[in-house]
């Protein structure tokens, strides 16, 4: 106010003197097509009077002569000269410098930076590229689109979880998942339970709550360098999701609708000509018969996905708003599996107080309902009973009569019977139609993410931003098994497993920004603080278990009906507070050399009582635009070299320092025997990376190369301990190293008036090495199932799969048992290989011809192994086609030796059957290892853009034919090796009765009004 008054008085005084030329104040906004540009420089030509724009592209320059010229410059944009000509407000829109094709990218904390100045690798995927083929689980579309990002999906179907890993597994305790950030704010991505080899079902994750149509772009910060501003949560990389915002101008309405069909690609290769002997459950007859061969195919159905959405966006200079609604309805490929989702989002921003303060709010609501996700493992999984069914029996007897009336109880049971119920009492299998009709799993998620941010432009150099975010989810998992089911997993009156809980995260930050240019130097600096409070799985959980009195009355699934023996548990998984302060300075010199320094101090409640709850870690990065420093040949348009180093601290999990005792379901107290870990330290991850960004031929061709080396130390590991008081202890020990390269090639080989072709090729290779574990233990067992194990062993790697091999003689011949003639297995498990691929490639192509465009994504994984317990049991049960082919032939070929004599032919049962042979639950693992290598057409869309110029009310309309996971160019495994049993870390590459992979094809219509 005071300033204004003075200004006015001064203005009046000047007017009175009648002077023609005088110094004035000029302000305005510098922006590009997509919005304001922070950090652009505005300089009065021929003087050193200059400023850089603030967070929202605002600048104010004092003492500008009314006839001066302003030079507006921003890296990656064409420099622009603007005459002041007495104007006090000058808004400039900069054009992208096509010769550099530089992009402004959103990096940590929502800060926009010119890509050129970055000292670390970052790759951006546009929302439209992710959504071209409308995958119900949109995160899968990320696969192959960014180098070094490994995506594996659960086999549980629509709404299932995804395993994402950037640059390998770094931590022996967590699952090395990256942090997801929406508009600068970390989001909760809690995974539900994961199946083991035996039992269970995927519980989904938090990403599915987003409406993919709301996504403007996704940026992937791969290294800890980039992630340091997020602290330990970002230690495994960060995926930054920027959502769409309203734009000033006429209101736009966009409607999209896609319909697609989904079907399984193939079932395992099964035989239908050899049945069982003497009523056995295995199909080991040697006499072939003419048996039904359709019951497996009949089980599966065609799934339908309908994804509809509408969005409205618009606004004026002061206020913009965006609203969207999305609806997804999906039915699975197995009966009774479906998924429904509704998404609402509303985002608005308003400028107030002379445009100095911008208030943005964003609310995202979602509701998801999943029925009967596909299970994995043996228990209550319809696939075991379906695949193994004895061929000589009539499946329809069991399909129609899955329940047999028990007059003693006046209810239906899956009784042991040859004409209904199920023909065998076996914990590994049940009547699939009993499971379908009598057992259900309903998951119900509701979520709200509400966000408010206030950005205040203090003056030319300083701006301040505060954000508050509340992320709240309510989740219910309700599993009901009716009385009379499999007696191993269903009690007399049925079984109920129910969980109802909330996940919440409160996040606040405040960041003070400073931008300036002083002579040849530019400064971008910030200092900030965050507060984060999470409270996960706060609720109740009950599992009525296997006792007769678990449920009082049959088939009533509610709390009233729980017997006194059942424990109803209060749950809480994660109750953590973290506070941080951080600072970051990026210094530029002549827009050629950049130095980036950052530091962060965290205070984590999970380290309470250790004295190490406060910890600091720094990072430093350098980048040099060599093409500006050294004279380059004409064909090099741009060349940048970058290097950076960072250390990042990772706090320990919740409630590990001094765990307490527990009340057990028997009403007794289970005493804690884990040693208090009062000297715990945060895990430290140190990274180093160098990279080169080279663009040639007027940027028609670009190569981005990165080498990185990541060392994780002071891992948080648990080992058994035999002491007077404790049975196990946690220690900080070990060293895990990941190193690798990432190459992204992009090019626009053809551009003509009517036709263009642009292509991007991503390559990445990562090597993981467990250099050291602990001084007193060499193996921190990770998991595995049955014969397969996935240990963490010094000198090994994450993802190593161990199992039993064939015993072989010096010539490599398989040694057969002296008496039964079956192949012998090694006494101990041995290393079979590693689940991670040697390298991965992703190749996307965009072809445009007039109104037509084709987008194609080809993904390949090369090397690595996958293990199949499914195939092992198919052999054990005599239902694999190979076991039948061998019976047709009368023998299986083998290069073996028995009692010193060479053997070339072996009896099929002796080779494949459970007991003497390779098959069954604990057979010879080596026989069920497959190459993970696969190359597939992951996505294809063919779009036509309608000509709507004549129609006022439509601005844009397109129709696309879309397909996901269409076919394999090459695949070795008898199943899709990219599908995983569990998206947790415990069973890398081990598959056990997963749903087969699916492909989708459909149509997508998009109309903008």
């Amino acid at each position, binding site marked *: 106010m005071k300033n204004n008054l003075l200004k006015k008085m001064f203005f009046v005084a000047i007017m009175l003197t009648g002077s023609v030329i005088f110094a004035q104040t000029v302000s305005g906004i510098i922006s590009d097509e997509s919005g304001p540009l922070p950090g652009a420089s505005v300089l009065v030509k021929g003087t050193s009077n200059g400023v850089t724009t603030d967070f929202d592209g605002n600048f104010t320059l004092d003492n500008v002569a009314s006839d001066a010229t302003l030079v507006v410059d921003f890296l990656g944009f064409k420099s622009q000269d603007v005459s002041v000509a007495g104007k006090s407000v000058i808004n400039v829109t900069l054009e992208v410098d096509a010769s550099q094709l530089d992009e402004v990218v959103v990096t940590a904390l929502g800060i926009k930076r010119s890509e050129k100045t970055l000292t670390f690798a970052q790759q951006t995927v546009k929302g439209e590229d992710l959504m071209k083929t409308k995958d119900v689980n949109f995160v899968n579309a990320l696969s192959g689109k960014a180098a070094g990002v490994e995506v594996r999906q659960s086999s549980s179907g629509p709404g299932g979880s995804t395993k994402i890993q950037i640059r390998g597994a770094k931590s022996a305790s967590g699952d090395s998942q990256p942090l997801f950030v929406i508009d600068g704010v970390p989001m909760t991505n809690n995974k539900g339970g994961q199946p083991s080899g035996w039992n269970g079902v995927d519980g989904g994750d938090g990403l599915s709550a987003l409406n993919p149509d709301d996504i403007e772009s996704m940026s992937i910060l791969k290294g800890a360098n980039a992630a340091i501003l997020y602290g330990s949560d970002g230690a495994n990389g960060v995926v930054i999701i920027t959502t769409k915002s309203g734009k000033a101008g006429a209101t736009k309405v966009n409607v999209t609708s896609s319909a697609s069909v989904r079907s399984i690609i193939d079932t395992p290769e099964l035989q239908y000509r050899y049945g069982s002997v003497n009523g056995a459950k295995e199909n080991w007859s040697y006499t072939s018969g003419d048996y039904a061969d359709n019951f497996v195919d009949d089980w599966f159905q065609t799934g339908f996905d309908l994804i509809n959405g509408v969005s409205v966006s618009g606004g004026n200079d002061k206020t913009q708003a965006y609203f969207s609604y999305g609806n997804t309805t999906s039915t699975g490929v197995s009966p009774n599996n479906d998924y429904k989702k509704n998404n609402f989002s509303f985002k608005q921003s308003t400028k107030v107080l002379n445009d100095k303060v911008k208030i943005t709010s964003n609310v995202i609501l979602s509701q998801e309902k999943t029925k009967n996700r596909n299970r994995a493992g043996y228990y209550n999984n319809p696939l075991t009973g379906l695949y193994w069914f004895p061929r000589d029996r009539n499946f329809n007897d069991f399909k129609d009569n899955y329940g047999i009336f028990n007059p003693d109880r006046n209810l239906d049971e899956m009784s042991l019977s040859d004409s209904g119920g199920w023909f065998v009492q076996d914990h590994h299998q049940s009547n699939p139609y009993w499971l379908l009709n009598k057992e259900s799993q309903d998951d119900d998620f509701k979520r709200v993410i509400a966000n408010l941010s206030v950005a205040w432009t203090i003056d030319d150099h300083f701006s301040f931003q505060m954000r508050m975010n509340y992320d709240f989810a309510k989740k219910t998992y309700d599993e009901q098994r009716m009385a009379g089911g499999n007696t*191993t997993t269903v009690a007399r009156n049925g079984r109920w497993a129910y969980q109802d809980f909330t996940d919440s995260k409160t996040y606040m930050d405040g960041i*003070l920004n400073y931008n300036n240019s002083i002579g040849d130097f530019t400064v971008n600096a910030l200092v900030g603080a965050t507060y984060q409070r999470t409270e996960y799985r706060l609720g109740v959980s009950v599992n009525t278990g296997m006792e007769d009195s678990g449920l009082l009355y049959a088939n009533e699934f509610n709390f009233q009906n729980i017997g006194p023996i059942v424990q109803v548990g209060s749950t809480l998984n994660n109750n953590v507070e973290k506070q941080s302060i951080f600072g970051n300075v990026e210094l530029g010199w002549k827009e050629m050399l950049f130095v980036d320094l950052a530091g962060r101090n965290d205070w984590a409640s999970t380290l309470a009582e250790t004295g190490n709850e406060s910890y600091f870690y720094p990072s430093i990065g350098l980048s040099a635009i060599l093409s500006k420093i050294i004279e380059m040949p004409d064909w090099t348009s741009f060349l940048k070299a970058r290097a950076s180093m960072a250390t990042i601290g990772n706090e320990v999990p919740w409630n590990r320092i001094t765990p307490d005792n527990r009340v057990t379901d028997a009403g007794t107290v289970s005493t804690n025997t884990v040693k208090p870990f009062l000297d715990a330290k945060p895990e430290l991850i140190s990274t180093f990376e160098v990279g080169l960004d080279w663009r040639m031929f007027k940027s028609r061709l670009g190569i981005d190369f990165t080498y990185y080396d990541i060392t994780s130390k002071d891992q948080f590991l648990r080992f058994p301990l035999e002491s007077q008081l404790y049975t196990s202890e946690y220690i900080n020990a070990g060293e895990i190293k990941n190193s690798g390269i990432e190459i992204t090639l992009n090019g626009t080989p053809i551009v003509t008036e009517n036709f263009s072709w642009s292509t991007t090729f991503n390559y990445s290779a990562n090597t993981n090495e467990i250099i050291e574990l602990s001084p007193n233990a060499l193996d921190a067992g990770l998991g595995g199932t049955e014969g397969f194990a996935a240990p963490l062993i010094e000198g090994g790697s994450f993802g190593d799969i161990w199992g039993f091999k064939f015993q072989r003689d010096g010539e490599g011949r398989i040694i057969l048992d002296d008496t039964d003639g079956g192949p012998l297995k090694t006494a101990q498990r041995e290393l079979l290989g590693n689940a991670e691929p040697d390298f991965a490639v992703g190749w996307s192509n965009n072809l445009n011809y007039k109104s037509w465009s084709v987008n194609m994504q080809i993904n390949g994984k090369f090397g690595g192994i996958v293990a199949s317990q499914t195939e092992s049991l198919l052999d054990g049960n005599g239902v694999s086609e190979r076991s039948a082919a061998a019976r047709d032939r009368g023998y299986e070929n083998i290069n073996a030796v028995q009692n010193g004599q060479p053997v070339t032919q072996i009896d099929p049962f002796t080779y494949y059957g459970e007991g003497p042979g390779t098959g069954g639950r604990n057979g010879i693992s080596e026989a069920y290892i497959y190459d993970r290598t696969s190359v597939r057409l992951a996505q294809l869309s063919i779009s036509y853009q309608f000509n709507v110029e004549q129609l006022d009310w439509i601005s844009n309309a397109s129709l696309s034919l879309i397909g996901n996971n269409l076919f394999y160019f090459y695949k070795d495994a008898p199943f899709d090796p990219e599908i995983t049993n569990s998206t947790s870390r415990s069973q890398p590459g081990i598959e056990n009765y997963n749903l087969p992979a699916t492909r989708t094809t459909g149509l997508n219509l998009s109309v903008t009004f």
Partner: protein
Amino acid sequence: MKKIKYILIFAFIFSIGACTDGFEELNQNPNQITDESLKQDFQIVGSKYAPLFQNLFGNQIHHNLSNESWAQHLAQPTVFVGNANNTTYDITWNPNWDRTYNNIMSPSGLVMLLAEEAELPLFVHWAKLIRILAMSRLTAFHGPVIFTQFGGAQAGYDSEPILYNAFFTQLDEILAFFKANVNAQDMMQFDESYGGDISSWIRLVNSMRLRLAMRISMADPVLAKTQGEKALSDSGGLIESNDQNLNVFLYGKVYHPVTISFGWADTRMSATMESVLVGYKDPRISKFFDEVADPALVPDHPEFPYKGIRSGASLDAKGDHTMYSNISSDFKTVTERRFMGAAEVEFIKAEAALRGWSGVGTAQSHYEAGVNRSFEEWGAAGAATYLANNTDLPIDYDDIVYQGDRNDFVNKMTVTVAWDNALSNEEKLDKIITQKWIASRTNTMESWVDHRRTGYPKLPNIFDNRSNAEDGILADDEFLRRVIYTNGQRQNNAAKVAEAVGFLGGPDEIGTRLWWDTGANF
């Protein structure tokens, strides 16, 4: 004015990253119970006993697929692991070590510490006694175990002589303390077995001493006699009636074999039980097992419609044998499980009489008392008739669902039930141990020890011998004599395991005999 802005902003930023007051509380799980809270009602010490007692017994792989199968009380219809598993002498599950150390030794260590802090020495001694109950079972699996040196990383093993001496010394201490505090009421609310009655615990201490003394009767006859006579002559007495038995409360849980038998259909009566109980016309058979539904399964003894599965049988499909006899449905409602009882004490006394230990009556009187106590315990009638039977022998076994002689066996047992003073000591011992074997139903650990120690009863060998070089090869006429050390110990405590193998005097294999398994009875 501008400065004030920045000061405010910085103050705001730094105010976030400063307050760590609530961290300690946040990092605790509110759904757990702290030691502080457990001090109420003295649960800090008392509540620790229930899980200790619960863990005296394990579950399916700990017993049903281990000692219950090797002692041939129960057998399995299920084709586990292609039929190469514990029951066929291919060690697949070896879980008793970890269960004992994780669930008994470590928590009891904490209890002892807490009880000492709270000045409750009675509880210290109670925990010590539970340790002996548990460790005397674990050593029966492996031989040398970690006991006197327990408490550190990579702890050393005790040889069996050192171990048994330690057991006896500790029993001395416990006994002395119990006797000095015989009227103490402290344990009352936490003792589900004896309601805090110290005299009952004294009888158990003496009975345990007697059991362990008899175990080592051939390994160290002098020590065995000394300790045995000490137990027999102690003023505190022994368990002499069934109401003095040590029964472990199930804490509301179902008796686990019910789940294994009825829920999972993974266990059934053993063929050996069928042979012995049917042969002797034992009325307890209906207390132990359920009848089969189909009379066609028992053509050779329709009046005893019970059918068992051969131990270590050769099996095609689980469904082949699930119609054989379940354990008795009566077990569905039991609330406790016997750890040691009056019948066992009588049978040990009968053996002590054969061995010339003082403080006992005649072998016959104790033998017959043992049978009587067992009949009383199970509520079976007709003990007198049973004891008078000097003709019937166990029968031959036919696995009726399989063709030919697959799984069949010819009975090798040669003693009848009725006592005969004219018999040799060897034959008398055979009778005693055979009856002790029957009476031990539901807790086979000592029967498995007795069979290895004395060779009685003359059990058939398993049918499908899958022993292999990994765990030790056994000939088809040999029995498994111990369980190998766990992989965890072999990997993480290799040097001490090597020492233990030295104590063992043979390789760490299933054929190596334990200290008390001397191969001779007199």
